[in-house]
């Protein structure tokens, strides 16, 4: 089975929704794909433990009104199926979809770095825990330690507290001086300053990072470096994430230029590949406000409304300023590269230890000798970690980009015989 649309948007978070809404009034056929069961992306994740923001609800309701916009939720991109054609899979079927133009709004994921005990049940990402709580994970009465870097730690702590958990420590790796400089500049973005005040917590410590998750079958405590001191805190959960990394795998497989871990775009949000645009966190981490305006610009340019897109440049610049400050304020302390010990597993799919990887000079030799990155996640976790730990260039994804059913892969063959 195959279908065609004028404009395909991958990702239904703020950037993808904004792009769809900007392009929809033109009447062209638009498909928007998202691998989660509900639109909203990570920041606007809906669920039993979530408070869905009014702006998100309004946007979701709006794009349901457009008959020319089709939303495919719980749908993954499995492979490239030819020029401007992708192989897709959802719970029921596999099919190919061709397009004239594409906007990549694939978002970002957390940077997860290995430390002793990080494979224990009870340890999650920081945004990961927030997503799981919004998805209905009960945490009432639990003691939770949140660690890593960036404003997401405070947002995650806030969600945990609102769902009845006791957040016993928030460990931010950046120094008080850099977090202070970041906070002091927030007057230029009043809604962000307000958020910072609302999220403030007495459990927050700067220049603090996790050393180890302790426990045998399950997490029981966390060892944390706080300045010169070491704390050991009994807890039920540790949520640890070292800020975000753009999801560039599909862009990279398509041949779009990637620099500094992000899709390179010009002032029109166009990537290096003709008719392929990118917007939001996949072009560099900057928050939902920047994602929204970038998505709008991409959507407008895709339907030829460059003049209108140009009027949004100043707003984009304003939020880009916030993003730049954010990235300076929370730059990673090099000590975080030394958290793993010889036997700490780095590749969680193939259970490959740090010492087995450290002996190699590049991702490729490490992969050939140890099977790292050859499991189900294809190195999305470990290759991202080894890029930070060893400076290794991460690999290009191979199809299938995520585990897929044979019946889906057969659609590729049908594409060939039809051609």
């Amino acid at each position: 089975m195959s279908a065609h649309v004028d404009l395909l948007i991958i990702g239904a978070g703020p950037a993808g929704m904004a792009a769809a809404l900007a392009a929809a009034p033109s009447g062209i056929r638009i498909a928007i794909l998202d691998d989660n069961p509900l639109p909203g992306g990570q920041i606007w994740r809906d669920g039993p433990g979530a408070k869905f923001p009014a702006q998100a609800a309004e946007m979701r309701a709006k794009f349901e009104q457009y008959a020319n916009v089709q939303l495919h939720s719980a749908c993954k991109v499995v492979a490239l199926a030819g020029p401007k054609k992708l192989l897709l899979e959802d719970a029921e079927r596999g099919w190919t979809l061709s397009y004239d133009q594409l906007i990549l709004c694939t978002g970002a994921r957390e940077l997860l770095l290995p430390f002793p005990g990080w494979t224990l049940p009870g340890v999650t990402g920081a945004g990961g825990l927030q997503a799981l709580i919004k998805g209905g994970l009960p945490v009432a009465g639990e003691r939770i330690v949140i660690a890593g870097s960036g404003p997401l730690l405070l947002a995650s702590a806030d969600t945990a507290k609102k769902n009845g958990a006791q957040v016993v420590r928030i460990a931010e790796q950046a120094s008080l001086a850099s977090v202070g400089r970041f906070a002091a500049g927030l007057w230029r973005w009043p809604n962000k300053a307000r958020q910072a005040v609302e999220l403030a917590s007495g459990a927050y410590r700067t220049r603090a990072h996790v050393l180890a998750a302790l426990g045998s079958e399950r997490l029981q405590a966390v060892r944390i470096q706080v300045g010169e001191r070491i704390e050991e805190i009994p807890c039920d959960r540790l949520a640890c994430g070292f800020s975000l990394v753009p999801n560039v795998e599909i862009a990279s497989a398509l041949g779009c230029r990637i620099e500094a871990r992000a899709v390179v775009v010009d002032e029109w949000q166009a990537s290096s590949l003709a008719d392929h645009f990118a917007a939001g966190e996949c072009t560099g981490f900057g928050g939902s406000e920047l994602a929204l305006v970038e998505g709008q610009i991409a959507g407008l340019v895709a339907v030829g409304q460059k003049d209108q897109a140009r009027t949004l440049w100043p707003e984009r610049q304003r939020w880009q300023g916030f993003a730049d400050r954010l990235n300076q304020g929370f730059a990673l302390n090099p000590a975080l590269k030394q958290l793993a010990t010889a036997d700490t597993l780095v590749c969680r799919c193939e259970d490959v230890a740090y010492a087995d990887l450290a002996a190699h000079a590049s991702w490729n030799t490490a992969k050939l000798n140890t099977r790292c990155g050859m499991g189900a996640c294809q190195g999305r976790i470990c290759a991202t970690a080894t890029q930070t730990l060893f400076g290794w260039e991460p690999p290009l994804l191979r199809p299938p980009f995520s585990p897929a059913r044979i019946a889906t892969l057969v659609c590729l063959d049908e594409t060939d015989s039809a051609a």
Partner: protein
Amino acid sequence: MPELSIDGQPFRFAQGTTVAAALMACGDRCSRTSVSGQRRAPLCGMGICQECRVSIDGLRRLACQTICRDGMQVETHS
């Protein structure tokens, strides 16, 4: 409230709960066994890490991207 079976035991969860959230709240709160025999639980919560892959009605699915439905059979040991 959908009722589903997790490793043969029946559980009920609030409407809209993800299978990952459900797994972390019952049984041994894990989703799979690693190649070296460690029990693992959902990690990234957003469809990237594959730690929450389970068998749902015989098909391999990511628990964090699947919403609990009445009658689902979830297996964490396959």
